[in-house]
């Protein structure tokens, strides 16, 4: 199967321009999904306008705003840069080198994404009072969100054509230059996508900053809701966040620029001989031990400490297993739904680029990531209660839809990066070889996009595990997830009872990484691909 694929790579993207540019059905579905994702934005506008321009203005244009703006921006820039470096380096080492214990690291490096903010920050804050303010926020957030860069980059490196690197090397290009120009070039879309996610997640982060005492726009939004009962004011501030995220989106769009992501030879995917680390092996290994030690060891140690320091259980709650079951169920369904919803939007963006309207449609779906979860949940509450007569309110399906909306951009980045590697020309080749449409979809498109789809699913699944504020509003009455039960204990000083829930969250987070890791190791087997 690799020979037709390589034949196709010889013919570049030229014919694409001649294709009919209006895929009506796909556009309609994508527009419908974008409309659902726009609901929280509509809610923000409705609420913010209810308090009047004057009030919103005096809330936004006050002295604290400048501080909040500066705090938010400098944190976003520093943490995004750090995550880009750490996430990309870790992904490259795991996917492309002979790093000892690659499979184990592949699981361990993504788990920090599923540790609740409170556990991470409290673990750190209880280590030393040095971990406070800007410094504390940078450390805690970098260690919590670098997997958002790691996952898409690893997926993209896994699917990339090692042949290009070999060609470059055979032409006498040095190792470092090859890495910088070819490898990073191949992963560029994924790196930028990951950075976009990091920046936008930072804009909406709350729990961690509260603990390290760092004020941003989002902590202020929560203050408005938690103290002042002022949902309109909170929504007015959230609109500023949306504007900020538009700046981030524009920045990402510009830096993506016209640099073409290589689409060649996706079917030529095969196991490349891993780069030998040689003498660098031990320092790199030490780096991984340090990274996972800090990102994983500190919160786990804090949880274990709590578990052993309490004297008696004082509260009743749901059993650990029941909470874990609901968490996994909601996470898996939300991951699947978000990935499916991302497919049409990604297909439109990747296969039918151009056209301002369609580009705006795709970009608009990212904005939801910068809106705090509590606002998204209240938006769904508003619309279901007002326009659907309360249909499905506080039921599992609506909660899953809420998760899929909140974390849609995470899925979109994964799906887009992988679709870019499955050029439509390959579908056409397969069809011309007599394969049925279904077979093409399953055997060509799905196989090529598999790693990206799996990364998309994982990103959403991991994020759902720790989601709290929206869950509390929308969860069916009487049901507890790991996060809500952890919160119930933790806010009541029952740390000893809370700690096992934190540890199980970490364990549940490891499951998809392990399963998918095994899946990829098998499907990357040379015997199966060729």
């Amino acid at each position, binding site marked *: 199967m690799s020979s037709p694929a390589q034949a196709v790579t010889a013919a570049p993207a030229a014919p694409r321009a001649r*294709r009919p540019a209006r*895929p009506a059905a*796909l556009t309609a*579905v994508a527009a419908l999904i974008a409309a659902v994702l726009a609901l929280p934005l509509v809610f923000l506008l409705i609420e913010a306008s209810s308090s009047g321009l004057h009030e919103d203005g005096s809330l936004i244009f006050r002295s*604290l705003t400048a*501080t909040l703006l500066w705090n938010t921006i400098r944190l976003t820039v520093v943490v995004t840069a750090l995550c880009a470096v750490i996430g990309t380096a870790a992904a490259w080492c795991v996917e492309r080198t002979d790093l000892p214990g690659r499979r184990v690291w592949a699981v361990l490096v993504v788990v920090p994404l599923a540790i609740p903010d409170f556990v991470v920050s409290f673990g750190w804050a209880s280590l030393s009072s040095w971990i*406070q303010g800007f410094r504390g926020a940078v450390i805690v957030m970098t260690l919590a969100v670098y997997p958002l860069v790691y996952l898409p980059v690893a997926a993209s490196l896994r699917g990339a054509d090692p042949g290009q690197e070999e060609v470059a090397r055979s032409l006498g290009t040095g190792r470092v230059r090859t890495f910088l120009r070819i490898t990073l070039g191949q992963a560029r879309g994924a790196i930028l996508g990951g950075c976009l996610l990091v920046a936008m997640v930072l804009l909406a982060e709350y729990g961690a900053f*509260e*603990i390290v*005492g760092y004020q941003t726009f989002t902590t202020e939004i929560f203050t408005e*809701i*938690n*103290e*002042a*009962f002022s*949902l309109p004011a909170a929504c007015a501030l959230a609109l500023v966040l949306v504007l900020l995220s538009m700046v981030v989106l524009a920045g990402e769009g510009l830096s993506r620029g016209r640099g073409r992501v290589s689409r060649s030879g996706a079917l030529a995917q095969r196991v490349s001989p891993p780069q030998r680390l040689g003498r660098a092996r031990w320092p790199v290994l030490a780096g991984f031990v340090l990274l996972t030690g800090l990102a994983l060891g500190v919160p786990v140690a804090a949880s274990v400490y709590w578990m052993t*320091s*309490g*004297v008696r259980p*004082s*509260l009743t*709650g749901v059993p650990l297993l029941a909470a874990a079951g609901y968490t996994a169920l909601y996470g898996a*369904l939300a991951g699947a*739904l978000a990935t*499916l*919803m991302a497919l*049409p939007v990604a297909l439109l963006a990747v296969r039918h680029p151009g056209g301002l309207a369609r580009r705006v449609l795709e970009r608009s779906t990212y904005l939801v990531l910068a809106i705090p979860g*509590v606002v998204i949940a*209240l938006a769904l*509450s*508003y619309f279901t*209660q*007002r326009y659907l007569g*309360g249909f*499905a*309110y*506080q*039921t*599992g*399906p609506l909660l*899953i*839809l809420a998760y899929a909306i909140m974390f849609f951009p995470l899925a979109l980045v994964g799906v887009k990066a992988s679709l870019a590697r499955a050029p*439509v020309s390959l*579908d*056409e080749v397969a069809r011309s070889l007599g394969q049925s*449409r*279904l077979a*093409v979809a399953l055997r060509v498109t799905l196989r090529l996009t598999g790693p990206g789809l799996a990364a998309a699913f994982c990103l959403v699944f991991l994020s759902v595990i720790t989601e709290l*504020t929206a869950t*509390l*509003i929308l969860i*069916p*009455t009487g*049901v507890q997830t790991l996060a809500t039960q952890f919160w119930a204990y933790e*806010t*009541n*000083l*029952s*740390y*000893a009872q809370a700690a096992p829930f934190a540890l199980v969250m970490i364990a549940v987070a490891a499951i998809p990484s392990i399963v998918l890791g095994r899946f990829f190791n098998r499907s990357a087997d040379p015997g199966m691909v060729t």
Partner: protein
Amino acid sequence: MTARRWGTARLVTLAVLAVLAVLLAGCGNALSISSDGSSQSITLYSGQHPQTTDKIVAAFEQKTGITVRVRSDDEDVLADQIVTEGRRSPADVIYTENSPALEFLQDRGLLAAVDPATLTATPARFNSPQSRWVGVSARVSVIIYNPSLISAGQLPRSVMQLADPKYQGKLALAAGETDFQPIVTAVLRAHGRAATVRWLNGIKANAAGHIYPDNETITSQVNRGAAAFGIINQYYWYRLRAETGAASMHSQIAYFAPHDPGYVIDVSGAAVLKSSPHQAAAQRFLAFLVSRQAQEIIGRDSLSYEYPVASGVTAAAPETPFRDLRPDPITVGQLGDGSAAIALLRQAGLL
């Protein structure tokens, strides 16, 4: 060529629609607990601690046969949620730790009048002046301090002294905590606006580096020696002691001078939503909250460490009896929804 290319798109479209349909319709029953309550079931939106609610709810269910479906969240989010849900709110009763959330809902016209008989169980000064919520229990603001960092003699006698530069680096503050607002309101009432703003600026400077998200954090940080002292509601200290054991308590509590604006009673209360279709059952729950049985659970049979305020029940746990407290005379009506305090906290840059 076009037809072929559409293969993937159409497949994806169908798959998306299928999954959406399944999620929204098919597994609705499997994934959720039925949300249509019968008349023998009420939904409680609770901002109270489970230490207080768990046993009360169980006793009520046993006594009346009415099922109580509890949803817990921060009381402020619950209040916003009820406003957003509007006429169809699933909530029948809201039960909060502090009065401002109830005052807020009352001002919005969302609360039903409480049965007069229920109101008489609680002293009138702990009920809503408009009779739309009933006081259930109370707490008092105290100083928590770590004797290895500050001696009892060095502690402030008045909350106004917290702004004294000599406490720089020693004070822990949770300005965003619901329990701090009433103190600001009391200071504002006692000393006026200008003095309150100066005072807030002073404590902000003194608490730099020790500004925490909530009273729980102040309690644990002072206890482990990260800060010398702070202001909390008394029950956090007792709960930490119950949780970790007396041996690991490295902190103590102290009171402000009698009638000081820092010496404030916070009232926890409950109300029936006007929109509730289960008015009778909801009113019964309120009546039960202030009954002797529920008040004794709060005062004697739970780890709540709040003061019962109704039916003449007294608390067993906090050493200082409720009648011996000498708080600032501010009323729940004067505490209101706390918006004046919030405006000042914002002006000082603490919110």
